């Protein structure tokens, strides 16, 4: 595995900051967060921003949480350093997600409600500010920009970073708007003192080009890199952004987005496009995925390439649509009827979502089958400033294309779409190609594609479809392995739990003795499971499978494939709250203590 790197040192507390902002609908908390993130980026730093919505559609309250550092960071804040309350509207709805401590500094408007009990009880230091009062003097000024000024000042953020972020974020609203915002921000800055020592003291700005993107945007770009030409989808939270990001872009590279009447149509449109010869995908979430499973089986049986991105949310049923959970693993592995081998991949963080999606689309094309890429609401909708992660060589395992049939003339042997072959792959023809006409079929068929119910044909074609996936060499990308020296314990996880585990393991290893240190494995290729390599790697370890669902779906899957050593265990809990490094660190401590 090339992707074996030592576990990085944990980010020291002095090199990380957690900021949150909350407010009623329309107060603009999210905008402050977005500008702040961009500003940290412009200043050379890293950051992760997540949002939380109340139950209201749009009119309701919302909150953003930022985790900022001068080192790559993709986890959620655990203890809020600074909180800005534009108002206290339904603040309790976010209490789960905004962890206040005695060290938290809170700013709020002095002219309206007082902080609610749960805030004062936390012991946080609450500083009332004359926000609304100050606004009276700024015609058209908005309270959130005032708040942004307060935060910028308290955080010691460079002027030019704020200025660039305002330009980039508000620029399209015109110069006047930017000017008004700038003025309001300045007024906000004037409301508070600069801290005695800047919280950014000692932070090293990066010189590297970095990305500012969400996981959903990363997916979209990855698919474009993979040669995507057709995206068909029906909107569903939290996957819609992917297609919305593609809509204006795909057409510019000669492709197009089809808005389907439902998910049944979307999946079948993808199949139609791919049959026509172009790389095609859809994006959905659990309920929509359920509706697509029948046609997914068709992609498998007819050997038509298709990429389905599923952005998981809280389940079952409509569940918790705006929040994250890793509970659709069973569905993506096993949701199809019959023996229907397909590929399932899952990126481990936002930045790698670009290449993993490119890889996924390439696998679909190359293996002529269904590939499911599973992410979740957190990965999909969080915004990150992060290092670009594109493997240097995408051409090997990742620059994958379809094996195409050649035109045939009279006298050539008849074209066999489903010809048996050593690696299970057969050249795929496409309409327009003379002499290689065939009918793709979801009925079991002979090598030419004629429906057949013979036991021999069934066995042959089942084997062919299985074999092409198991025989393929997926290279080193099936997992990321971060070993610790002499580690007894191995944490095995996937998807959006990976970054929290990584941070927890880093912290744990920094303070643990040798022998009590812990290794980490993030599984990227879930199906076909690379059981042999995985078993090899797990050998001699006590493995704990960490995942965000109620029943330990990954754990049970690995058991079913006999990929885990005997003493392995599950550490699983449902969403919608994500794992934090702190929570996992506590667990690791008890785990390694218990083990001795």
């Amino acid at each position, binding site marked *: 595995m090339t992707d074996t790197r030592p576990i990085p040192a944990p980010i020291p507390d002095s090199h990380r900051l957690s900021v949150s902002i909350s407010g009623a609908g329309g107060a603009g908390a999210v905008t402050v967060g977005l500008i702040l993130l*961009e500003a940290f*980026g*412009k200043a050379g730093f890293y950051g992760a921003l997540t949002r939380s919505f109340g139950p209201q559609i749009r009119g309701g309250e919302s909150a953003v949480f930022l985790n900022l550092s001068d080192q790559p960071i993709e986890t959620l804040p655990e203890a809020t350093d600074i909180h800005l309350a534009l108002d206290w509207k339904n603040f309790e709805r976010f209490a789960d997600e905004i962890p206040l401590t005695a060290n938290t500094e809170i700013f709020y408007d002095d002219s309206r409600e007082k902080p609610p009990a749960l805030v004062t009880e936390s012991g946080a230091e609450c500083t009332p500010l004359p926000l609304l009062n100050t606004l009276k003097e700024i015609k058209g000024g908005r309270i959130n920009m005032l708040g942004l000024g307060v935060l910028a000042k308290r955080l010691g953020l460079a002027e030019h970073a704020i200025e660039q972020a305002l330009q980039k974020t508000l620029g399209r609203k015109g110069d006047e708007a930017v000017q008004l915002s700038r003025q309001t921000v300045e007024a906000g800055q004037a409301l508070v003192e600069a801290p005695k020592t800047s919280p950014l003291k000692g932070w090293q700005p990066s010189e590297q*080009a*970095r*990305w*500012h993107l969400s996981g959903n945007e*990363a997916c979209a*770009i990855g698919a*474009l*890199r993979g040669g995507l*030409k*057709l995206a*068909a989808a029906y909107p569903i939270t939290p996957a819609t952004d992917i297609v919305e990001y593609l809509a204006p*872009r*795909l*057409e*510019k*590279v*000669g*492709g*197009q*987005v*089809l808005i*389907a*009447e*439902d998910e*049944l*149509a*979307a999946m*079948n*449109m993808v*199949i*139609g496009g*791919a*049959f*026509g*010869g*172009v790389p*095609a995908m859809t994006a959905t979430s659990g309920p929509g995925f359920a509706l697509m499973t029948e*046609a997914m*089986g*068709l992609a498998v049986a*007819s050997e038509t390439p298709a990429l389905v991105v599923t952005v998981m949310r809280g389940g079952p049923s409509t569940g918790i649509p705006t929040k994250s959970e890793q509970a659709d693993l069973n569905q993506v592995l096993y949701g199809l009827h019959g023996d229907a081998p397909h590929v399932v991949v899952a990126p481990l963080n936002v930045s790698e979502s670009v290449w993993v999606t490119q890889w996924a689309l390439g696998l679909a094309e190359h293996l002529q089958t269904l590939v499911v890429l599973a992410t979740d609401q957190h990965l999909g909708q969080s915004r990150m400033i992060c290092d*670009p992660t594109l493997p240097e060589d995408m051409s090997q395992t990742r620059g994958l294309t379809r094996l195409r049939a050649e035109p045939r003339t009279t006298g050539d042997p008849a074209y066999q779409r489903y010809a048996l072959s050593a690696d299970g792959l057969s050249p795929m*023809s496409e*309409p*327009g190609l*003379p*002499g290689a*006409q*065939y*009918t*793709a*079929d*979801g*009925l079991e068929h002979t090598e030419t*594609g*004629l*429906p057949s119910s013979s036991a021999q044909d069934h066995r042959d074609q089942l084997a062919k479809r299985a074999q092409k996936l198991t025989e393929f060499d997926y290279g080193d990308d099936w997992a990321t392995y971060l070993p610790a020296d002499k580690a007894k314990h191995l944490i095995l996880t996937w998807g959006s739990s990976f970054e929290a585990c990584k941070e927890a393991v880093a912290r744990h290893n920094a303070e643990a003795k040798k022998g009590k240190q812990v290794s980490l494995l993030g599984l990227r290729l879930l199906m076909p499971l690379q059981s042999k390599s995985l078993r090899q790697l797990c050998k001699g370890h006590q493995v704990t499978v960490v995942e965000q669902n109620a029943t330990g779906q990954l754990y049970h899957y690995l058991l079913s494939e006999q990929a885990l050593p005997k003493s392995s265990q599950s550490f699983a809990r449902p969403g919608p709250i994500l794992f934090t490094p702190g929570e996992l660190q506590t667990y690791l401590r008890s785990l390694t203590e218990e083990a001795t």
Partner: protein
Amino acid sequence: MKKAQAVERIDQMPVEARPARPNDYLSDNHPVWCPGCGHFFVLRALTKALAWLGRPAEELAMITGIGCSSRLPAYLASYGFHGVHGRALAVATGLKAARPDLTVLVAGGDGDGYSIGGNHFLHACRRNMDLTYLVMDNEVYGMTKGQPSPTSAPDWHSKLAPHGTGINAFNPMGVALAAGASFIARGFAGDPKGLTKLISDGIEHKGFSVIEIKSPCVTFRPEQKAWQKQMRSLNVSPTPNKLEAAQAIHASDGFDTGIFYQADLPIFDPQSEATTTLDELEQELVL
């Protein structure tokens, strides 16, 4: 993606390029249909229409779902997709969007198209892409052995509905009209000439063409053999006027054939051109 080309007519082609016979559009596979099934005659009329239009078989794609009627693609020499039940129009929509250069045909039964596939039927009409949709309507689910379909008469007795369904039959042409299809015709499997003409007109029409073809199921609806006497051949003339068409559809006893409606309506034909490079798009991610 490749640009759409005009469908060439056989009479405009150089002689040596003209396909010789309808049989050139037939594959070697023998249909699994029951002897006497109406679908045989639809297949025949279709290959005749294709020969008349003269596009090479490899530039045609026939997309179907599941049902007796949906077995069609295997019997043609063209490209084909035999997908899942009810979703043929969606597959065809994806294909046509990706490959506007192809002639994309869709076929199926009354169950496939009007029952499980009803939503795609509505939205295919609305999109009005340049597709031709042949519905072989036998007022029954043939493949699953004789259950009532949306077009079955409310008093037709069957195992599943021993006293009939008690539900009015679905009005495919009326719904197609309301939903936005731009070419709406009724044909009859037992009228080879008329049907060939309707199919070739439908393929030539730019936009979504719905051809509702009465095609008897001799096994589960033997009484449909009487259609041969009842159906009238191409006695309806096309109108581009929606209300007139509605009236004609409404007034028909179901035995009239011909084009009930044909109009130039806007076609969904998503244009896209490569004007940007991937590198440029990726630049957007960079801070």
